[in-house]
């Protein structure tokens, strides 16, 4: 049996955040919001607009911003402790993948103080082999994710990563998935070139991992394909022009979320890293040469994203070359 699971509501478009967040009041009648963000995002005022919107809706709120990069288990526990004191009915993650992952786990610990993340990580790192049930979430608080980088896709995934000393704990279960996602490229327009590049590489890895996965379905192929098309079409411009290219930013934002949906439904847990991006084209070349079915899949992907050569081989090569170009550009 296979499945397609996406958050209950995925809202997108530049400028959509104020419209989407209105639902917290009008549809859900939320009273208390617990915002999770990174220290740098908080200090630079990235949550200010969200806070203003919550104020206008008279939703009480507090901000937990002691997160940076990949959150540590201690920080997640601290966040959950703060949430237990505040008793929010909605948790809002504003940030990149570290923040969103932390928010997912803060919710688990807020709703299940007795839960042990290490233990959950050992039992629930593969979404496809679940012998028992992950503690049910969304009982006390719904989870809203608002990505600020155009690449993580974590806003739509059931995965979370957390640092435990020197090791990394990986969790995967649909109980970790947010219910409400707001992909508003206004939140991503201020990324530096480096951030754009590293985010795009992450999205590319998500796309190709999902597309190459044994669990790839026609549903996920559709998302992966469209995500790749957006990246090929708009990444060079956005990478070059940054905030003066709002359209490129929006296309990358959608690509990232679509890649996230594809990835969320094909893989066992978030295993991606930047090094994977750098070897992506090589890997593609190798596997397409070794396996005819992979070759055929690449051919149809290449066509789907509008690449064509004088013959099939050249078409596939164009795809691989394109990906190589993009990853090379981003890793500069």
């Amino acid at each position, binding site marked *: 049996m296979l499945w397609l699971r*996406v958050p209950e*509501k995925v809202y997108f*478009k530049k*400028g959509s955040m104020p*419209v989407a967040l209105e639902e917290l009041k009008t549809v859900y009648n939320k009273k208390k919001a617990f915002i999770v963000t990174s220290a740098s995002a908080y200090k630079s005022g990235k949550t200010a607009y969200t806070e203003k919107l919550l104020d206008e809706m008279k939703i009480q709120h507090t901000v937990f911003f002691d997160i940076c990069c990949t959150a540590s288990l201690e920080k997640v526990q601290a966040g959950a402790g703060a949430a237990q004191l505040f008793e929010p009915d909605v948790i809002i993650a504003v940030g990149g993948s570290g923040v969103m992952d932390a928010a997912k786990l803060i919710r688990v610990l807020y709703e299940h103080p007795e839960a042990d993340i290490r233990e959950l990580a050992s039992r629930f790192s593969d979404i496809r082999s679940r012998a028992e*049930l992950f503690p049910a979430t969304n009982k006390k608080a719904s989870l809203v994710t608002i990505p600020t980088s155009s690449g993580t896709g974590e806003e739509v995934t059931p995965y979370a990563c957390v640092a435990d000393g020197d090791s990394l704990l990986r969790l995967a279960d649909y109980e970790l998935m947010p219910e409400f996602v707001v992909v508003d490229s206004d939140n991503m327009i201020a990324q530096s070139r480096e951030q754009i590049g590293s985010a795009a590489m992450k999205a590319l890895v998500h796309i190709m991992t999902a597309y190459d996965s044994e669990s790839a379905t*026609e549903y996920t*192929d*559709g998302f992966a394909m469209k995500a790749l098309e957006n990246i090929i079409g708009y990444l060079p411009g956005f990478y070059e022009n940054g905030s003066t290219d709002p359209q490129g930013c929006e296309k990358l934002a959608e690509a990232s979320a679509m890649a996230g949906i594809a990835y969320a439904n094909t893989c066992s847990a978030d295993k991606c890293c930047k090094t994977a991006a750098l070897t992506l084209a090589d890997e593609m070349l190798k596997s397409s040469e070794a396996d005819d079915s992979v070759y055929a899949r690449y051919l149809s992907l290449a066509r789907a994203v509008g690449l064509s050569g004088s013959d099939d081989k050249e078409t596939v090569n164009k795809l691989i070359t394109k990906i190589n170009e993009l990853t090379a550009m981003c890793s500069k």
Partner: protein
Amino acid sequence: MANTEKEVEVQTNEGLVHDLDSFNEMMARVKEAQKIFSTYTQEQVDKIFKAAAIAANQARIPLAKMAVEETGMGVAEDKVIKNHYASEYIYNKYKDMKTCGTIEYDSAFGLRKVAEPIGLIGAVIPTTNPTSTAIFKTLICLKTRNGIIISPHPRAKKSTIAAAKIVLDAAVKAGAPEGIIGWIDVPSLELTNELMRNSDTILATGGPGMVKAAYSSGKPALGVGAGNTPVIIDSTADIRVAVNSIIHSKTFDNGMICASEQSVTVMSDIYDEVKKEFAYRGCYFLNEEELEKVRKTIIINGALNAKIVGQKAHTIAALAGVEVPESTKILIGEVESVDISEEFAHEKLSPVLAMYKAETFDEALAKAAQLVADGGYGHTSSLYIHPAQAEKIQKHYEAMKTCRILINTPSSHGGIGDLYNFALNPSLTLGCGSWGGNSVSENVGVKHLLNIKQVAERRENMLWFRAPEKVYFKKGCMPVALDELGTVMGKKKAFIVTDSFLYKNGYVKPIEDKLDSMGIQHTCFYNVQPDPTLASALEGADAMRLFEPDVIIALGGGSAMDAGKIMWVLYEHPEADFMDMAMRFMDIRKRIYTFPTMGEKAYFVAIPTSSGTGSEVTPFAVITDEKTSIKYPLADYQLLPNMAIIDADNMMNQPKGLTSASGIDALTHALEAYASIMATEYTDGLALQAMKSIFEYLPSAYENGANDPIAREKMATASTMAGMAFANAFLGVCHSMAHKLGAFHHIPHGIANALLITEVMRFNAEPVPAKMGTFSQYPYPHTLERYCECAHFLGICGKDDNETLELFIAKIEELKERCGVKKTIADYGVKEEDFLATLDEMVENAFDDQCTGANPRYPLFEEIKAMFLKAYYGK
């Protein structure tokens, strides 16, 4: 007097403005100055505003003395307060307000507000508050980069002009253009009218006559009028606070403030006590004889006697021939009538007060309401009461037709704002709303002297991707998926909805077995008709109410799933009205009707047995009221199933006709969703994948049925993907028209779509449509390109877009033919005369169909008709 003139010397403005020529000359100068001023920055303006406010404030005492000297009215010490207020409070209120250029920018919504000056403000200044009003009006004009010309009252011209001059000099010294403030030195009716005719906006303060003249001038006017403030002292009021507040306010500048109290209505149980306090605090109660004398003095021939305005109580009493102590604060007349024929019921602009007795609070309200009607419409009223008396306070504010309602507040000081309440804007020009014949109902301020441009950038609507929480697929997945009902969700009672064919042929059996094995109690409703009726949905919902399921499982084609959704609504919300739910909307997020929240009683599982409708993943359901034959198409994400199980095992034995009709239906879903003005990249990928599978596998599924399980499964997935695409991107006019062919001529839905789709594609592909669809994210007619994207994805490529489209259409025609779809509507046995007889109605209904809204080309009636005809005749 001499001392005053030494400090504030009246100067002429290059010769006195006394006639039309000199007026026009002066006006030209002000206009010229304003042109320059309009280019000033916020910093420049704020500097000028500050300097002018400081200068006016510094001159507050000489100006106050001068006004009293000149007009012979009021109290100099009180006028000092007014001048002080007009400079300091106005400055404080507006010092940080943005009045130049961009004052607001909302980047999320793309809306910029830009403040521009109005131009020339014509200011009429009354004799009652000459200097303070002049200071107020000139300051707010400086803050807004407007030019201002003052028309002073003839009896107060010297002091008015002196105040204006002080503000002008300070402003110019701080950088304002020379001549930005002008005035009429020798005021006359002619020049005042000329000013009104030539102003861009009139800022009129004065009596009803002046205000009426301003509004009649044909220029926009901010005018205010007379007040007749009635006070009620409730039994619960703090009497000492009430009485002394009233005295404080009523004696302020000898009662010349238009918001000042004119009458007091006291509840009978505290009347004596209130009277005692007034007397103790220096007010004089007139006896009957004295009352009559004062009546004749304050109002003469129905009009206020100008001689009493702003005079002391003792002076007025003397005029009336009544002997009162020199120190008397207020003359109080105890009267009964609130009719205008009672002199004391009028506005008196002096320390003369009417006092009424009321037995009940309602009687007091009625009196106050009449007094407002007597000459204070829209102005101010006041109430003294214990603050906890919320009910009475509400009754009072609901009954008063006044724009300021002051609670436990001296009304002279209270009405002008920022003294006894710090949210009421400070102003010396108090709007009286439509009741007072005014265009504003609040205290006039800086915002009324600006034109605000709104620069609206194009933005695209927020869009969304929504799918059922759980979509499970793969041949044989049903029992695995159903397992969650027991293990994860702990469901107890399942209600199965299906049709009798599926029930009799054992399709429900595997579900029942699975439920039994999990100990979930179940029942089955299998009376769903092909076009589900309201009657059968009601029947099902009744059965649900008896059974009380916590999960509903709809098994079947579109009809069973739609019927299941409707039963679900009726079960959860028996009060729901179909008319309301079926109301057409332009934007699903802005619809007037709020759909009730679903899922509170039961979880909804949809299991399709045909591959076409996509209903398992859509927020749509259609139900027919069998009594009226009206179809109710419902659309709301509340109708989205919670779980969809797409198991090709349930679809293996679809008859050929169903395979082909539903297969083409799914293709139409994908094509229309792709061409929709609401299509997104999320839906595009799904639509393209669905199309590809349909072209590849529908022929074999049609021809080989269960013998090609792969084709069956591919079609199952394609149908669901197409469903997800149109669940979020919606459909188009092909579906609108197909719905009507079904309703009027009973052509199966999939076939109806098949007969129309290529016609519609040609129609939509037109690069020069009569009208394009309206949606922010749909920039220009580009449907031809969109169809070509589909074609390219399917490997179809012509030498140009038009050829690609034709090749694509040919491929669709070929697919239809292979699947046994006939060519025309006529081929399906619809008689020509029947078709033509219903054509106009079908056209109108198709136009009004909910699906039409998302079509990339906005279809005209004639165009729909032409498509129907072509599809009928095949040419």
